[in-house]
């Protein structure tokens, strides 16, 4: 009896220290969310001005820029999956990956082959474990992305998009795997502290529709002059727009990750409390049973002694 009491006490102790850890992680996640949201708010002016500039160029020019023109027969699509570096965030990474698989199915159904680009260690291990190919992965910044991260990723992706696909197999000087016709991003949109939903946007070819507010009355886009030329402005503008969109997705994903982690850790803490309560009850019962047994042993012993004394 006493052995099991000791066991229960040990279990209570370890659950308590686990609870301390999950509680701490919950609080850390909660405080970081605020920082992530501030970062997102700080990035908003740049994104807004850039979107405005891009829509201005797109509206007032009829140039066919490779980044905005749909290819006639898209055969290859790149999918960028933004997941987390660490676990303990509930179903966060799993649902992003599920969404990515769904998109992959859809693209393959349309007859396109899919190249994967991964952000976050969780996506990387998911692919490595299944021994599936991916082109490139970036890790180590999922909960606090910087603009430089977005820039690195954006440069790779834009380069892949701008590579001309060579039908000639002999001309393998440029890695043919790198030429893509479309670029999709799968990330988790931060709706609120309670809801985050995995979603997909198509980044390239560019649909400038997104984020373009319909101009208010009398607030028509002015007739810009472009210097040095429309094409050159577009050339420089679009990669930056891509960077900024990727940055936006990274920030959303970071906020979602932290919110998911906070929620997961909160329920872990609650579960630990339940367990502690349950174990305490069982331990008390075991202790009481031990005491009862000891008393009955003493009483039994005393009676036996009295009986022995009486019979003498």
């Amino acid at each position, binding site marked *: 009896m006493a052995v099991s009491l000791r066991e229960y006490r040990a279990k209570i102790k370890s659950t308590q220290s686990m609870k301390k850890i999950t509680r701490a992680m919950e609080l850390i996640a909660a405080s970081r969310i605020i920082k992530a949201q501030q*970062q997102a708010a700080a990035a908003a002016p740049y994104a807004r001005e850039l979107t405005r500039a891009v829509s201005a*160029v797109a509206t007032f020019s009829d140039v066919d820029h490779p980044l905005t023109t749909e290819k006639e027969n898209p055969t290859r699509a790149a999918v960028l999956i933004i997941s987390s570096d660490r676990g303990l965030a509930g179903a966060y990474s799993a649902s992003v990956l599920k969404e990515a698989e769904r998109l992959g199915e859809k693209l393959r159904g349309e007859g396109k082959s899919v190249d994967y680009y991964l952000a976050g260690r969780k996506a990387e291990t998911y692919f490595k474990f299944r021994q599936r190919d991916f082109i490139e992965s970036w890790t180590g910044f999922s909960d606090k992305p*910087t603009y430089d991260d977005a820039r690195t990723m954006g440069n790779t992706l834009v380069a892949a998009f701008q590579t001309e696909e060579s039908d000639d197999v002999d001309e393998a000087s440029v890695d043919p795997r790198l030429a893509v016709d479309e670029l999709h991003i799968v990330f988790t949109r931060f709706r609120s502290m309670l809801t985050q939903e995995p979603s997909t946007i198509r980044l390239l070819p560019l649909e400038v529709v997104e984020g373009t507010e319909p101009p208010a009355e009398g607030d028509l886009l002015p007739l810009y*002059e472009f210097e*040095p030329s429309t094409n050159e402005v577009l050339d*420089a503008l679009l990669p930056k727009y891509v960077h*900024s969109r990727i*940055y936006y997705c990274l920030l959303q994903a970071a906020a979602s990750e932290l919110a998911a982690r906070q929620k997961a850790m909160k329920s872990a803490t609650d579960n630990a409390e339940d367990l502690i309560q349950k174990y305490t009850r069982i331990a008390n019962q075991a202790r009481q049973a031990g005491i009862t047994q000891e008393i009955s042993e003493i009483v039994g012993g005393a009676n036996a002694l009295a009986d022995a004394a009486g019979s003498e």
Partner: protein
Amino acid sequence: MAGPLQIELVAADRVVWSGEASEIIARTSEGDLGVLAGHAPLLSLLVPGVVMIKPLEGPIVQAAVGDGFLSVADDHVSILSEDTWLLEEIDETEVRRELAEAEAANDDDARHRAEVKLRLLGKAA
């Protein structure tokens, strides 16, 4: 119509400076460009260099910018550059160290940024 210019100097992750100004001078790919109130709508490419803003009040604001854009419309001037720093945010020893690191790592972008910062310091000195 010729009121003060509304200026927004925006980096990728923050607004560096915003306010009213009477004049702004920036270096575009076509050469230095000064903007006064009433300028025609313009979208132009910036090359790494120094932007000078003459605010309505206070001293001239100087900032180092990297590649980016200048857009002018209805007396609103937005300067967008992924890398933007105000003069007072730059520390010379820091920049020299960055420059050395960039040269060691053979990172052209970083070297470029550091050089722009140094140029700004040189101008101010």
